[in-house]
């Protein structure tokens, strides 16, 4: 371990070099994708693929996944693998609903964060203080989170006032939703009670090439947005700033890259790992609180549905970076929204989109001299095109696993460029370096 660290000094501050993404490049890339999507929409007539409703739903569905991914990022940047995100999220849903139905949704958010953070604290105690294998501890927390909340729900939601309000051993009483806001003038928001025009909505309904798609995208991101969604979205740049631009963040990351080097420089590795894993649990708890105050109106046993694990996938997809994981979460959210809203026909239109995308990749790879990769991409594009022409819709069974298929594809295409923290998942004992 130490030899590799010597031979290959790990850059603690990733420079925006050839491997990094510059903002302008990302924006250009996004614009090209949108243009392609718009073209596909006009050709196929599947208006829902860029509608504001789809974008809004994608954002709503992406937030819990993205928050879980942020939780994973915090833990893994400090060198602790956190597979217990799912359990911490479950704790967040229960505690959030418990406080939420009594004292309002924002109290639910705060208590949900605390609930998740307690799960994180437990994980930190097990992995950092006692040196338990990270996976074992994480799985234990998932089981504990599920069992504990079921037990507590039976104990507290099935009696007295809670029961009269609609609680039961499997669900909480309903929690009021957090207020939603819309941007005035552009998306029809209210200004002091005056209902302003919905300019983007008007543009969207014209179904013009590119213009309507852009309007739909913007309207989806600005109309009917829950205040908690704004908080969650803001956490992405905040995480980036704290982890990459502050002293505390540098120390946390150094614990994840080379804890013994950090130790030799006087960093309290245990304390840093504790802090990071508790923050990780808090993020997962917030994801759970989001589920009970925004996405659903109450706590329901089993409602997290594996979002914690999908968050981990989104984090890996995003190469252990905040911007990347937000993109991954949006991709999952978009695929889920497709599945829930329009299903077969819209996904059918996306076949054409993916086919064209693959064809472009084929040409690009070919020009770079990677003939075999180009050929494979070309064949895949041709097969998708044939599928597109031979069918009218995609069966529901396939639609439901589009997000997973997409991840698999992207991960297999980009896995060579992924780089996880060097000491991720290793057990660290103070002063034991050999």
């Amino acid at each position: 371990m130490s030899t590799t660290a010597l031979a290959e000094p790990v850059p603690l501050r990733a420079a925006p070099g050839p491997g990094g993404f510059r903002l302008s490049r990302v924006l250009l890339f996004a614009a090209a994708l949108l243009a392609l999507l718009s073209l596909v929409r006009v050709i196929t007539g599947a208006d829902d693929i860029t509608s504001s409703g789809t974008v809004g739903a994608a954002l709503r569905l992406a937030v819990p996944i993205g928050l879980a991914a942020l939780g994973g990022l915090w833990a893994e940047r400090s060198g602790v693998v956190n597979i217990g995100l799912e359990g911490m999220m479950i704790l967040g849903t229960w505690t959030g609903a418990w406080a939420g139905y009594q004292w309002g949704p924002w109290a639910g958010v705060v208590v949900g964060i605390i609930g998740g953070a307690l799960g994180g604290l437990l994980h930190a105690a097990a992995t950092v203080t006692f040196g338990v294998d990270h996976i074992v501890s994480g799985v234990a927390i998932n089981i504990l989170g599920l069992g504990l909340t079921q037990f507590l729900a039976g104990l507290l939601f099935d009696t007295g006032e809670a029961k009269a309000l609609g609680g039961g051993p499997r669900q909480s009483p309903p929690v009021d939703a957090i207020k939603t806001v819309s941007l005035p003038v552009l998306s029809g928001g209210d200004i002091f009670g005056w209902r302003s025009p919905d300019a983007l909505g008007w543009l969207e309904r014209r179904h013009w090439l590119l213009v309507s798609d852009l309007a739909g995208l913007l309207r989806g991101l600005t109309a009917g947005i829950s205040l908690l969604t704004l908080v969650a979205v803001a956490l992405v740049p905040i995480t980036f700033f704290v982890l990459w631009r502050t002293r505390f963040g540098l120390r946390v990351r150094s614990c994840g890259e080379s804890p013994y080097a950090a130790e030799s420089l006087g960093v309290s590795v245990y304390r840093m790992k504790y802090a990071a894993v508790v923050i990780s649990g808090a993020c997962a708890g917030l994801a759970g609180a989001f589920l009970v105050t925004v996405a659903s109106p109450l706590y329901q046993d089993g409602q997290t549905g594996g979002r914690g694990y999908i968050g981990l996938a989104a984090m890996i997809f995003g190469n252990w970076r905040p911007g990347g994981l937000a993109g991954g979460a949006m991709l999952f959210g978009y695929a889920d929204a497709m599945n829930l809203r329009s299903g077969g026909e819209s996904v059918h239109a996306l076949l054409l989109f993916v086919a064209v995308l693959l064809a472009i990749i084929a040409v690009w790879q070919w020009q770079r001299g990677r003939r075999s990769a180009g050929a494979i991409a070309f064949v895949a594009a041709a097969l998708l095109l044939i599928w597109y022409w031979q069918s009218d819709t995609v069966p529901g069974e396939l639609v439901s696993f589009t997000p997973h298929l997409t991840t698999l594809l992207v991960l297999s295409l980009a896995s060579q460029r992924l780089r996880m923290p060097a000491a991720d998942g290793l057990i660290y004992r103070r002063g034991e370096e050999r």
Partner: protein
Amino acid sequence: MRRGMRITAAVLASAMLTLGAAGCGGKKTTSDSGGAGGEAKKTLKVGLAYDIGGRGDQSFNDAAARGLDRVKSELNIQTKELSAKPDEPDSDKEARLKLLASGGFNPVVGVGFAYTAPITKVAKDFPNTKFLVVDADQCKVSGANVEGACFSEEQGSFLVGAAAALKSKTGTIGFIGGVNVPLIHKFWAGYEAGAKAAKPDIKVLPAKYLTQPPNFNGFKDPALGSDAAKGQLDAGADVIYHAAGGAGIGVIKTVGAAQKLAIGVDSDQYNQPAVANVKDFILTSMVKRVDVAVFDFVKAVADNTFTAGTKKYDLSNDGVGYATSGGKVDDIKAKLDQYKQEISSGQLKVPTS
């Protein structure tokens, strides 16, 4: 035998341990007779094995629990209730049934179609115990001591489909099913047929299933129901029928918030406190009388009138139906009751898939 018991107990105990402190809300023994179990008086011991969710799910299992509670109030019985765990194998269900049967519980009820195969298997080992499967798979059971209760959900769904079509102002209605399984297809088939019968030019949006098996989150995650409902509202639907269990709460809340109409399922959802603040937007509910099936069965065993084989619960014996709470369907009740009459008499056939 005793050894078998001990193994079962060990399996159960370890299963409980796996679920942490939860025990899945599972075991509950109550005795209404007041005295010790050894009393010579004729006390019926009823064992009830729930599907995932168990007592308190405010839906299917609770309906069975209501039936049991009703029996309890009318007969002198002792009960034991056990719940299933999510994603458990059939062998766990068999162990649960064996535990009940060998504990002297007779009759034994399995709630949910997942108990069909386990009960058929276990019933052979306990020929003197009477078993009931609620929602028997494909409506088929075998064995001289097994009864299967089947519900004609498509008939009830036909009526609420007709109600949806008659009440729709936009001429577009929607359906949201929890999981893409044959049982839920029955709801959809009846709904669509009913809507088309009442109003031939109605537009019924394609059925939306929240998840595909083996992923059963579509019955549990209200967030999925909520966004699916938003999608159908955006597509112009103004009446949406859900057959999605717990996820349906998301559907009802979203539809209610948009001031459109929702149709509930299984029990009369108008009276559920969890959706009380939007209950004015619940048009009706497709009611499935699981409680009646459980009550009839226990009563039959007590009166020694038990008959093996399947028993149909449909419109003709009020095993399924529609709810009238809230008075939203009062003006079309005559029309709905006419359909009900035609279906009961066999004049009108409702498709099941």
